[in-house]
């Protein structure tokens, strides 16, 4: 078990080394002739207008908030789902209450128009 987590740590390290190594290898193998034209932003050949970091829809932000709520609640459901095999109805009641709260939250967001893409 401990070994498994060591391997996962090695995954992170070797992944980083691999990315660095391939990018470096391509830098060694490839020609480099930078010019002003190559450094320009590529927007289909037309000259970019205004700053690249444009203001984007506030809708993305609302979705991000909703995602945060639902993702965390989903994580809470995982241990419950593993333990579901235990006999007895209590675990089912617990789940129904939890999912009802989740669904009420979703219904509220829906009613308030947070799920509408404008």
């Amino acid at each position: 078990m401990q070994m498994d987590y060591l391997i996962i740590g090695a995954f992170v390290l070797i992944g980083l080394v691999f990315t660095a190594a391939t990018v470096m290898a391509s830098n060694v193998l490839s020609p480099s002739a930078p010019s002003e034209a190559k450094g320009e932003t590529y927007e289909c050949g037309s000259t970019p207008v205004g700053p690249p970091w444009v203001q984007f829809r506030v809708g993305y932000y609302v979705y991000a908030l909703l995602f945060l709520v639902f993702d965390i609640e989903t994580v809470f459901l995982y241990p419950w789902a593993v333990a579901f095999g235990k006999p007895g109805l209590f675990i089912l009641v617990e789940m129904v209450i939890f999912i009802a709260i989740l669904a009420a939250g979703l219904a509220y967001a829906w009613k308030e128009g947070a799920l509408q893409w404008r």
Partner: protein
Amino acid sequence: MSDVLSVILPVLAAVGLMLANGVVLIYMLRKVLGHLHLRVGPMHVGWHGILQTVADVGKLLTKEDITPTNVDKALFFLAPAAVFVPSLMAYAAIPFSETWSITSLDTGLLYTFAVLSLVPLGILMAGWSSGNKWALLGGMRAAAQQIAYEVPLLLSVLPIVMLSGSLDLVEIVAAQGGYWLGFVPRWFVLHPLGFVASVIFLIAGLAELNQTPFDMSEAESELVAGFASEYSAMKFGLLFLSEFSNSFIISALGVTLFFGGWTLPWIPADVVAKIGPVIFMLKTYIGIAVFMWIRGTYPRVRIDQLMSLGWKRLIPISLGLIMVTGIAIKVVETVRGVS
């Protein structure tokens, strides 16, 4: 020394598998899409173009690596790593057969989803740092879409966890052994509740992968190449590689959860045990071929349609499915207990 090797070798094997997957899948995509469009696809490099992607890797390695002047340098260099590392890490828990998996985590399913959910972060980094409006829009779209469909993806798997009672991918496959009515394999895709879950999994998985019909993040006709527009040479190669590798991971998860993993029905268990990894790879590649078939067939949906499908249809349906599964399991338990 041997301890160090036994930690490093599995990781290197995963890197090798990922590279091989990338090379094979890109060739397969071109061929499959070509034939779906009544073209022939690559034909010139090697027999039926079989060496085409190998040549492309050579090309990417020797192309000039351009860093546009307008980029946010630190993030621009970090983004390929932030996309590549999580998709490499996702190989850690995939069970190729009963004994062939890189790690045997009790929580393999949760682990795989956890690392896959790091990918949008890298994509957002790539889009933001490029200093390009198309890239920014593509990155924002990709991130919004991946987080919107991560919730139904996670929820659609819960009925399977409840039915098998484990997050360990090996045990989930083991729970699919045996037959219903004596001849129907107990794969979860053939279970009525599991079937609904598998449909949600397929839709949400395609959206997670930014695959057609949900590929607005790199809609070629609108956004050049989306978040990857400003990337060139091997940095682009890494972004591309992890995209293909992620479709392998999602397909492998689908095979494990719904199609019995490395097992085959009606064939003696000792024969199956010998060729487990081969069966697993074949099933996974068939899954990817279905993704490509969908890619060659369906038009792109609009982003508002995508969002309402995710939030207003898939999430309520999967929440309902969890309820129904819970009640069904308890009813079966009670009936069995009484009789």
